[in-house]
């Protein structure tokens, strides 16, 4: 579904991605793991049209993604939840969600999809009239994900959804991601919380200093002592 080939991306002289290749198949959940500054967000940003790579290609459902302007990605079924929530703080929960259904492809069936989102995050249903900016970090992240789902995506891009959340809130979030995943949506996720992400994902790529240094099934990576040492704080016994 998504095919990234030899992607190189630079900010001035700094090389953020150096010949990265990766794939996401239909219905798969693929995680990109790596330390701060490894290039995870740059990779997701390139797929989401936020940053222009210097070379390489990204193909999505057999078309050249790099040729599409950013505002048309959503019409092709790509939804991005950027790092740091990405909600509209002055609007109500309901308006934030309606905004997600703004693209032409999402206008039909918006009501039904909203009910799905409310089913996924019951808290949002209770607080549909609340101004989004006054909610807790975890709730705001739910709004952000809900908004993305409202656009009827085929591919959901998540950039550090658990960043800055209390552990218990993050746990709740991962449980919701598990339910979204079970619905069959294709997901590409960038996360620092490697343990929780590997528990959900099908496959993962390990990114270090802009290069892919490893890839494999999530299950196998979870049990790989080298991975555990590098990405999981060395302790993955539970």
């Amino acid at each position: 579904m998504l095919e990234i080939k030899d992607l190189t991306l630079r900010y001035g002289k700094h090389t953020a991605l150096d010949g990265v290749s990766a794939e996401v198949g239909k219905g798969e959940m693929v995680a990109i793991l790596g330390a701060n500054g490894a290039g995870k967000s740059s990779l997701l940003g390139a797929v989401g049209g936020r940053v222009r790579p210097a070379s390489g290609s990204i193909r999505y459902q057999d078309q050249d993604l790099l040729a599409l302007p950013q505002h048309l990605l959503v019409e092709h079924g790509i939804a991005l939840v950027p790092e740091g929530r990405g909600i509209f703080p002055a609007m109500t929960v309901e308006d934030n969600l309606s905004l997600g259904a703004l693209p032409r492809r999402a206008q039909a069936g918006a009501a039904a999809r909203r009910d799905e989102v409310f089913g996924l995050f019951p808290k949002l249903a209770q607080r549909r009239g609340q101004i989004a900016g006054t909610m807790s970090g975890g709730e705001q992240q739910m709004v952000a994900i809900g908004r993305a789902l409202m656009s009827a995506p085929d591919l959901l891009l998540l950039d550090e959804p658990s960043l800055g959340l209390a552990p218990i809130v993050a746990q709740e979030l991962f449980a919701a991601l598990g339910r979204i995943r079970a619905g069959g949506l294709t997901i590409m996720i960038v996360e620092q919380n490697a343990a929780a992400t590997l528990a959900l994902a099908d496959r993962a790529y390990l990114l270090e200093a802009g290069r892919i240094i490893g890839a494999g099934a999530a299950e196998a990576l979870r049990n790989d002592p080298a991975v555990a040492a590098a990405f999981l704080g060395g302790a993955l016994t539970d």
Partner: protein
Amino acid sequence: MRKTLSLALPLAALVLLAAAPLVASAYQLGLLLGMATYVTLASAWALFSGHTRYISLATVAFYGTGAYTVAVLNESLPYPVVLAVAGVIGAGLALVVGLSTLRLAGIYFVIFSFGLSELIRELITWYEVNVTGTLGRYIFLDITARGIYWQMLALGAFTIGLTAWIHRRRLGLALRVIGDDETVAAHSGIHLARVKLIVFVLASTIITLAGAIASPRWVYVEPSIVFNPTVSFLTVIMALLGGANRLWGPALGAVPLFLVFEWLSSDFPDTYPIILGLLFIAVVFVLPNGVLAGIERLRQRRKA
């Protein structure tokens, strides 16, 4: 009920305001015209800047261009045609400026917009001195103060009506969203550059027309008069005081501030710029979102 009231009240006010010149003295009519002008300028400014948060100091660039268009053409073309030409020039200028600058972020846009007014003033001065050999032009038009006032009132009403209409449309939603988060806006399928450009051109055209309509009052026009940067600053401070992201905010800020400035500039002409500056600072510090948002916050606090 609320809906009919929100339409009936402004219409009744408009009728009253339109009838006012029939009983007003010449001085009072001058005040009314000044208020109508600044309500129009502040509302048009807020149409673009209120939600996108692009603070533009280019108001006088367009306002002055409108006035100067009338000064140049008033003897060769009939007045309605002159107005139309001014509108077209304003829209064209806004299109060029918008295409080249709306990618600038925050402070860079502010500085550019300020520079634009100065640039246009200097260009026209240079042209008049070197090519036409005159600095200063006369506007002799057969338009009464009443006529000017009615035109300005109509333009102001149109601006507020247009703002209300846009806010209810997809375009209005897009504007609000762009001010909050451009990345998410783009990922919601909004063409950022196009939305910003459309609204910038609309607002700038209105401001240009306001300058064209107001110009016959001056009779004598030269670049340093019509491109006075104080107009840009007053417009911003008025819109911010009332609340730039509310429909009635700019009007609410423009009326009292115009009266205060009128009084200050006649009674304290020397200290007036200092007071203006202090007021600017006070508004930004005390009421960053305007009076209307301040009142709302107070109400919510009382409820809680």
